[in-house]
């Protein structure tokens, strides 16, 4: 945020990034693409309700890849989780949202 505030002073580039950006993921390519697309869809659909977005992602992921997915959608949070390997995807979307999807049953 601080940098964003500083940015207008520079006026060189005030670019708002909205594309999904994967911060950390060990999913398979197919699963990751699915997860990212799903996150984008959910966050765009429920842009004002992170809970519903998370629920949608979780339920769809459960359907597609088996149960016990966990999804966190939010703008500012910290987490420390245990996940089953090859099932985590931590991505940013819309420039201000962080979405963490993982599976642990």
């Amino acid at each position, binding site marked *: 945020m601080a940098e964003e505030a500083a940015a207008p002073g520079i006026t060189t580039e005030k670019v708002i*990034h909205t594309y999904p950006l994967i911060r950390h993921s060990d999913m398979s390519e197919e699963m990751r693409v699915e997860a990212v697309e799903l996150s984008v869809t959910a966050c765009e659909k429920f842009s004002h309700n992170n809970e519903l977005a998370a629920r949608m992602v979780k339920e769809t992921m459960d359907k597609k890849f088996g149960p016990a997915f966990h999804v966190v959608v939010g703008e500012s949070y910290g987490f420390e*989780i245990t996940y089953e390997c090859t099932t985590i995807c931590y991505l*940013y979307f819309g420039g201000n949202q962080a979405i963490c999807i993982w599976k642990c049953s």
Partner: protein
Amino acid sequence: MAPKKQKEVTAKSRGNLVEDDNLDWLKPRTLVKPDDQEDVPEADLEEEVGRILTTINPQWVADRVAYHYGQGKFVVTPRPTFGKAYPLFIYQGTAIRKDSDEAKAQIAAGYGMVGFDDAGPKRAKVKKSTAEEEEEEEPEPEPGGAEEARPDEDMAGEEERPEGDEPEPVAEDAAAETAPTEGEPAAGDEEEGKEEDEKGPEEGAFMDEVIDIKPRIKKLANQFNFCERAALTYNYPRRSVDTQTVPPPRANFGATALQCIIFDFYQEDYTRKMKEKEEERPKRLRKKKAKHVKTEQQIHDEKLAQRIREAWAILERLVNQNIYDDIAQDYRYWDDPSDEFREGMGSLLPLWKFQFEPMRCHAVCDVQWNPHYQDLFAVAYGSLDFTNQQKIGCLCLYSIKNPAYPEYSVITESPVICLDVYTDIPYLICVGLYDGNVCVYNAQLTLESSYQYKSDSVRDKHCNIVWEIRWGPRLIDGEPSFFSISGDGRVVQWAVMPGELQATTIITLTSNVPPIPGPDGTMLTVNSCGSCICFHPDKPEIFMVGTEDGMIHTCSLKYNRNYVRSVQGHHMPVYRIHYNCYNNSIYASCSGDWRVKIWEDGRDEPLFMFELGSPVGDVKWAPYSSTVFAACTADGKVYVFDLNVDKYRPICVQAVVSKKTKKLTRVDFNVKLPVIVCGDTKGTCHVLKLSPNLRVMCKPPKKAQGIDQRTLQILKLDKLLSLVRDPPFETGVVDEKFEDD
């Protein structure tokens, strides 16, 4: 007995009714009637006639008397206790009553307990009853005690048989009905005989019924002692087997999502993407150089190696200069003093020989001085021995400062047949290969780099040897372009686009040969094989093409079907066409038919013709004089002509290489210095210095001292040409003159 029969009849009628109902659907029943049957109205038939059966036998004589002879009077015969039945046949059945002593004994013994269902014992009784029926006739009385309980059970048995699964209540009703009759058994007995007479038909029906029943009686439990048997198969004992798998691997991950972190990461990714985008463009340009990523250490090493290499190169030059000091002195300053004494004759002074060790067996297929650096020349190493072709070729740049080793050398995949150095960018060299490909090399790139552009081997390369290649004017968009002529008869223009070569076929050289019939009726047109190409110095769209059948075609870029002009110039492949440097209409050609011809545009006959006694590999006009040209021949000689000095004979003939082992292939004049370079078939380039007599300049006439050398040269050539042209030019004149000489 009577009550039983009575019941039986009712039961039977009932049963029949049921049966009729059941069988109606099976098949239409046609009743067979005797002819004399009385017609009875339907209503009468339907009417139910009640019939009361009693135990009183109407035929029974109550008090029968017989005459007693002893007493001499009629005596009432004692009434048999039994009915009026006479047993005819007695068969002891195997059935026994359930509550008889014998049965009890058997049951007590544990026998027959399993199979004794309701039907079994009752049927047994039925049979017995029929048997007893017959026995009824028997005079001897039977113990009635056993029979007393019979009616009840008989009823039930009889009821069940015809009606199958008729419910129990019927049996009970029957039992109830029989109860009152039991009260007067004696009367029944008395009247049995009568009853039987009366109900003859009835009796017949009853007998039928009995016969029907009999097969069922076979099912007696005692005869066929059915019992249920069960077999138990082996049961495998149950076991529990457990395995435990390794739980799926898990890992921990933790992070903090904050706006600042997200923003930073987006910025980072964005800059990375921008950088990639920037890098993409250069990568596309030199995508051939795949290894692009170099660490700093590598870059440092390379820089160091480059500096060391430069240092060594200088050192090598120093050493070479010391070794070849005398040659270097000669090259610059020595002029053959004997020229002063022999008018009109000159000589060539051999200077250095350039050899590249890996290319010893290759022939110098083309050699060209660099237009920008006067001491640098490019050599194309290929092979002219077409039966024993070399696998590889080489493009080398030699500097006369270092005769020991080429400044630049790059091995090619196929022998190099021709090359051309781009005048605008003197480090760009296009080469034509034996396999039909054309490449562009950038001599500025490091030595390990390969070609910068190469034609696509599949799409657009030539199908034959590329014989000559020439840079052309830039295209409208500013891209350089070059032209190549190949043995497949095509002249192709190659546009050097960023990252690729774009081919355009300018003209396909047609041949005079009529089309040859192909294998399946097609006609194959034969292209004539192009062997050299030469562009007009002033008109960029006009170019001349020499073919292997000796034709010289003048073509235009604007016409891709027809030739502007066509001359049968030679009888053997034309090896070189070269325009005069001062007069645009004069050009020289040389050929494998041993001849060098000097032509003027628009004339079908050559102005001059010289026969050199051996295939002429190359002919070049001197850049410094309008009348001087040099030619090299396969017998290892270099000929220098100065038409101004001698129109019929060369002013210098010098054997440069031994004609037994080597042939001279190409020759080229240095633009600025009075040296020529010629290549031979053993990979050696000879640099020769022209003696003063071979490079005499024009002296301006005293009247006009200010005229520059170029104008003088042009004037000189024009004067010479006017000498040749002015007399009405007749065909064969030149030939005759030449022959005379």
